[in-house]
């Protein structure tokens, strides 16, 4: 397989972007999960899909737009979606989660309309839904690299503020941190990561790469930094094993990556249980 990667550009694109996403999705995922925003990632991915479908429709209808990479409109949709979610969350202060189904259904609704308007880009759309090893272009790879840089810059500038915000929002406000602004930037970065991840894992499974490695990591990590490190390790393992099996078994990588991530999660839960049992027995024996 290494030989194939060296020989074929599309495999290089897929693998490099996969490795990058395997880092940035769980890295941001830790903040998303601890702030109980996992479902927002899901809602945003469906909005992104509306942008992609809209772009595919436009490029079909207007020949001038045929070369437009759908990822751009996807990014625009994701970013607008994240702004709208924030607006709605403030509007329905006591029912913040209402923003999620509203935005999610808007995304799916628009997608359905664009699909029926275009009535015929099913194969292309499939690769956006479930990911694809062969569809990642060099341009996609560059976009992923740019988004990764944005994520790294954002977190290295605001890591300590993001921690305070995630741990205790009231305290963040009381201590005079610009919590609103940082949260807003965070939502934009989340939108970018979702748009970046969709080429590999597919829109429907983006949120799994954001949440599953974190879920596994939280079972065993001690402290916040460790949670981040394990999340990235699990994310990378899922991407690498998932892409390899997708390539050899000719399956959609979204599926293989997510199933690998779930297997990792199950193994971690199981191992942790066994260790706890052994410890409990040892303690019992001492008594």
């Amino acid at each position: 397989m290494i030989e194939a990667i060296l020989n074929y550009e599309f495999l290089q694109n897929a693998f490099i972007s996969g490795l990058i996403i395997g880092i940035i999705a769980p890295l941001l995922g830790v903040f998303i999960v601890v702030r109980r925003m996992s479902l927002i990632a899901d809602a945003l991915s469906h909005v992104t899909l509306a942008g992609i479908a809209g772009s595919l429709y436009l490029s079909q209808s207007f020949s001038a737009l045929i070369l437009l990479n759908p990822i751009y409109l996807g990014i625009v949709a994701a970013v607008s979606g994240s702004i709208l979610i924030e607006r709605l969350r403030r509007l329905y202060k006591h029912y913040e989660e209402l923003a999620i189904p509203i935005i999610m259904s808007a995304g799916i609704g628009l997608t359905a309309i664009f699909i029926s308007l275009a009535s015929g880009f099913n194969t292309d759309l499939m690769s956006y839904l479930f990911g694809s090893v062969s569809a990642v272009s060099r341009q996609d790879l560059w976009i992923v690299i740019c988004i990764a840089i944005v994520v790294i810059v954002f977190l290295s500038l605001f890591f300590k503020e993001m921690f305070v915000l995630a741990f205790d929002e009231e305290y963040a406000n009381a201590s005079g941190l610009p919590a609103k602004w940082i949260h807003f930037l965070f939502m934009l970065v989340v939108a970018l990561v979702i748009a970046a991840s969709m080429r590999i894992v597919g829109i429907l499974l983006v949120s799994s790469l954001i949440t599953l490695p974190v879920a596994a990591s939280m079972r065993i990590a001690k402290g916040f930094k460790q949670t981040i490190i394990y999340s990235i390790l699990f994310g990378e393992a899922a991407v690498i094993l998932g892409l390899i099996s997708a390539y050899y078994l000719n399956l959609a990588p979204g599926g293989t990556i997510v199933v690998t991530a779930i297997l990792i999660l199950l193994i971690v839960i199981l191992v942790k249980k066994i260790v706890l049992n052994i410890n409990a027995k040892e303690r019992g024996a001492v008594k």
Partner: protein
Amino acid sequence: MSQTFIDIKNVSFQYEYTQVLKNISLKVEEGDFLAILGPNGSGKSTLLKLLLGLLKPMSGEVQLFGQSNETFRNREWIGYVSQKSNAFNSGFPATVEEVVKSGLTKKVGLFKKMPKDANVKVEEALTSVGMEHFRSRNIGQLSGGQQQRVFIARALISDPKILILDEPTVGIDHENVQSFYDMLAKLNEEQNKTIILVTHDVDTVSNRISHVACLNQTIHFHGFKKEFDTISQTQLDNWYGHSVRKIH
């Protein structure tokens, strides 16, 4: 002469049609250990939010260290310890060390890295609340009282002049409340921290406290603890209805 740290001048506040605070005036001097006593709905959370600059008074003014609250920038002078129960989710994956260190965030400032001596400061802050042996534990594994101490350490690490605690003894076992107050009194005496705590429970107004303020929409009493002790139950009933019981 000791300096006036907080000066609340004739402040009123209302939410839509409900008057919550009426003509409140209250001074807190350097070195005070003040308990603000008020039942639920007496406006104590609103008063705290006004102090922290999260709300603006409808009329009157709040001054901090001689400056108007609206222009006051040195927020790190005020260490705030919120009511533990609603402040964070106990499953949060962070160690005691990480939580305490995060108290430096505002002081260090945006775009700057934590200083090298941050770990020393963590150790000092944890020692002053008697939690130095819990440094690498996950915050969720501690008892309510221990978590409260960690949050006080988080406030102490930025070396504030005032500590403000919202219902600090909620979630602490009865037998540990005394040692909790001993620790606060030590901070007050040895480190000269001015302490304000807000509580609904007259029982927790311990003898370690120097001043008491009785709040129910307005300030009914503000004075030394020993003066407060002479107030009769009938008088308290007048202020609070029957929700505050004095135990002798």
